[in-house]
């Protein structure tokens, strides 16, 4: 029984925190609200830290680390709202690695930047593989795929793909006429590929609407389990990112609750504030426990990974919504002003809970996993 960070993992986290601290990401997040170019390009930092190759086998030049290590890096990025394309890259590298694709070497060293085009595995009430819609609850099918030997032609659109802008290689999922999923590596500059950069409320989140018009790419040897794993890895990563943001919200709230006085008492001494912040702590530690579960199960108990990653996302979504609002409530009026940092975390919470299927899809998946296991 050893359910804690190893020394290497402590080191990995410290170095990630150090690498990111060289950039004032929070200040950049402020400026980016009015000038998107203000965001620093943290890709070189990620490459230098070896993050692109985190989940790639050593044989292909990667670090061959575990899912939990990737989650620690995502947590550090979330802590300071750093716009590092972890969410887009790592699930893509997981698919490329499983398929032993030719691009692995270049990807591992950061010469070639992949982006995962998220595709949701089937469930009880949704038999096919689906993608996020531009708007509304109903999910469209993944792009149509026509397979011709090693090349695949994709036609279809996928909305709000994290970290698609600036990617060199799109790792997408299509469906053949029979509905079978097929993994495809499509160069971003291939004919028939268009990536429309979009911003939605959280200026630190790079998003692109991806369109394939008969775009051609390499067929990847990656079956449904690998593609499902990539989806749940993305769920766990966005949960870990949110956990980092929750920790910062809690630290800022506690600090203010000690300094701010009203009616002769520090506001943290009032039960309504004290209990609200212990609730932030409770949600945070529940999310952290499920981060551990997700990281551990992907390597040691793969059949529990869908449940673990979905539970982590479910807890993280609730925790961040509550923490970001508590941060503003504790500060009173100034917490809701443009100059204050609190709204940056509120914006991160509002958008991240509506990407990659949304938090409510993860909660539904937890129920489904339990029903099938019951």
């Amino acid at each position, binding site marked *: 029984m050893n359910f804690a960070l190893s020394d290497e993992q402590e080191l990995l986290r410290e170095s990630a925190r150090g690498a990111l601290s060289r950039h004032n990401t929070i200040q950049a997040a402020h400026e980016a609200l009015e000038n998107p170019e203000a965001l620093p390009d943290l890709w070189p930092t990620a490459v230098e830290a070896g993050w692109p190759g985190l989940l790639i086998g050593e044989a292909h030049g990667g670090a061959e680390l575990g899912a939990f290590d990737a989650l620690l890096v995502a947590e550090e990025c979330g802590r300071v709202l750093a716009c590092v394309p972890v969410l887009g890259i790592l699930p893509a590298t997981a698919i490329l690695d499983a398929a032993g694709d030719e691009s692995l070497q270049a990807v591992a060293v950061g010469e070639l930047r992949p982006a995962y085009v998220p595709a949701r595995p089937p469930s009880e009430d949704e038999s096919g593989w689906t993608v996020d819609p531009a708007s*509304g*609850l*109903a999910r469209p099918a993944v792009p149509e795929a026509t397979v011709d030997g090693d090349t695949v032609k994709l036609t279809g659109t996928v*909305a709000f793909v994290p970290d698609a802008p600036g990617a060199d290689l799109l790792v997408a999922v299509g469906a053949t006429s029979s509905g079978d999923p097929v993994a495809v590596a499509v160069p971003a500059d291939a004919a028939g590929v268009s990536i429309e950069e979009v911003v939605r409320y959280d200026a630190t989140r790079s998003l692109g609407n991806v369109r394939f018009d008969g775009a051609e790419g390499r067929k990847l040897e990656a079956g449904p389990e690998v593609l499902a794993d990539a989806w749940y890895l993305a769920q766990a990563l966005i949960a870990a990112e949110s956990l980092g943001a929750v920790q910062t919200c809690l630290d800022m709230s506690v600090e203010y609750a000690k300094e701010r006085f009203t009616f*002769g008492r520090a506001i943290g001494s009032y039960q*309504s504030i004290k209990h609200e912040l212990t609730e932030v702590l409770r949600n945070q530690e529940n999310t952290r426990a499920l981060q551990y579960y997700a990281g551990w199960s992907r390597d040691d108990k793969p059949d529990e990974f869908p449940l673990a990653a979905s539970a982590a996302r479910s807890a993280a979504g609730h925790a961040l919504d509550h923490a970001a609002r508590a941060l*503003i409530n504790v500060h009173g*009026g100034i917490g809701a002003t443009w100059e204050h940092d609190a709204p940056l975390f509120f914006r991160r919470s509002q958008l991240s*809970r509506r990407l990659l299927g949304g938090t409510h899809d993860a909660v539904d998946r937890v129920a489904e996993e339990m029903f099938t296991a019951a």
Partner: protein
Amino acid sequence: MDLNDTPEQASYREEVRAWLEANKADAPSPSGSSEDKAYTDSRRAWQRKLAEAGLAGVTWPPEYGGRGMGPIEQVIIGQEIGRAQVPGILDAIGIGMLGPCIIAHGTEEQKSRYLGPLLHGDEVWCQLFSEPAAGSDLAAVQARAKQAEDGSWTLNGQKVWTTNAQFASYGLLLARTDADVPKHKGLTMFIIPMDAEGVTIRGLRQISGEAEFNEVFFDDVKLDADAVVGGVGNGWGTALTVLMYERLTIGAGSEGFGYNSTRFARALATDDAARADSDVRQRLGEIVTELLAVRFNGYRALTALSKGQIPGPEAGLAKVTTVNAAIAAGELISDVLGPDALDDQSEWSYMISFLPGLKSAGGTEAILRNTIGERVLGLPPEPRLDKGIPFSELRAKEKEAAAR
């Protein structure tokens, strides 16, 4: 039990409706930016027209330009203005709260000098109470007014959350005139010209980027002896009058800040998957239930008002219900529509950004619940450490504790 007007109310409503029908053409558009002088001037002119027709300050005593009518007539005017889709008065704070304070506590010179121009929109007023370090604990304001031999005052300090400061002519400012007595005792209320030397006004932008409020800085601002309202040292009593009128205006707000359930239902109804989803329906059903309760509690409050009963602090629960229901609606709509609901152009993005600030505007939920728990349920108050201690000593203790 009925929602219809009494005969007198019905005839008054007709009068108001007829006037609005006849004068609608002169009305500016309901929405425009407070930064745009031409727009605010058009709103001043429209308020003057309303005042001359007796539709502004209707509850003011007749000798100051009002009609001496009751809260029901005030609500009828508000309903009819909404129905005619024309803007209301520009200076709701001046007419609703600050004017009545001058009527109650001002000298005869102050009443005759200020009330007329205020009512007619020539001079807009703003409320200079809250400070960065004194929000809920208003009596802990630190803005300092020192009196010279000749009786004039010099004011230094900062006020925050001031609506309309950017085009107000005057402000009603709560300042500390004696720091060596317990905090409630050393306060005085001043009338301050917003164009006076040493007054600096800065817009305070909210999450959405728009400046709903202002910060105002006072550096050695000179005030004449006759700037005092309600007497030196009586500032807290004068301020309580303003806060009582503030609660009156919130209490009478019928639909609760304009968040209505039909608008939320319509946003979801077009999505067939959402319309049939039982989780969406449970969440929408709970939101609609809360907002309907606010509307019908509003009718109960109006009925009490019409019988001369001033609504108690529990009227503030309407704001808690409304804000929390609107927040839940923003979450539901974002979950259904997805990221597009958060796009700057979307009608929902502004609401979602506005609500966290609104939650603590006019007093945080926790302070409201303290007041209601003590005044309505009769529960005992918390032990108070700040009573009976000179303000200066209190400040020293706080600094020392924060340093620990």
